[in-house]
């Protein structure tokens, strides 16, 4: 037989939430050290990377499914939303190009443009999916 206590349940959830944040950023820190300090490749660290990607995507889509606004806790007016949507994919696309450039792994402008384009489109697709799921949640929960 179990006996639930709302105060303890709430504290358990809070502790689990903090533990998740610690694990997520801990794994990220491990990946950064392995890539940039120890010089390991993505193929050598795929297990850690897969855990980190799956956990991050799970968190991202669960937020969307629970109706959390994308920019929460910062409220954005329509103009700010456009700036956010235009800026974040560009920065996300530039980041891998910059990292590859610093590691001397870029073979030319075509390679850079390819990496930028794929990352940019992937980010836009993730944003579009988030908005679509959010809109679906709102129709299902609030109407």
């Amino acid at each position, binding site marked *: 037989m179990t006996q639930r206590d709302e105060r303890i349940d709430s504290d358990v959830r809070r502790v689990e939430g903090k533990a998740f944040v610690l694990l997520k950023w801990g794994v990220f820190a491990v990946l950064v050290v392995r890539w940039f300090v120890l010089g390991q490749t993505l193929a050598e660290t795929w297990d850690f990377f897969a855990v980190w990607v799956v956990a991050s995507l799970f968190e991202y889509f669960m937020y969307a499914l629970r109706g959390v*606004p994308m920019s929460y806790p910062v409220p954005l007016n329509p103009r700010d939303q456009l700036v956010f949507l235009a800026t974040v994919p560009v920065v996300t696309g530039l980041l891998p190009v910059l990292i590859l450039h610093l590691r001397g792994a870029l073979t030319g402008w075509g390679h850079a443009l390819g990496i930028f384009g794929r990352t940019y489109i992937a980010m836009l697709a993730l944003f579009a999916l988030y908005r679509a799921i959010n809109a679906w949640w*709102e129709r299902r*929960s*609030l109407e």
Partner: protein
Amino acid sequence: MGTVRNRVRLSRAEKQMTQEDLADMVGVTRQTIGLIEKERYNPTIALCLGLCRSLGKTLDELFWMEENDDAER
């Protein structure tokens, strides 16, 4: 335990406020007001009191507990 019911939508309509107006007054999102009105989210006591103040109602006018059949047995 029973189910928490509320009269937030009715009281908001009486005051001719939109969900957005009420959300801004109590410091939450419009979606949260929508969920409370649909009784799909139980607000904390602090948010309940904020809603009471914004809508000019007492706590028991705005929120009450409806006993489940299981709890009554």
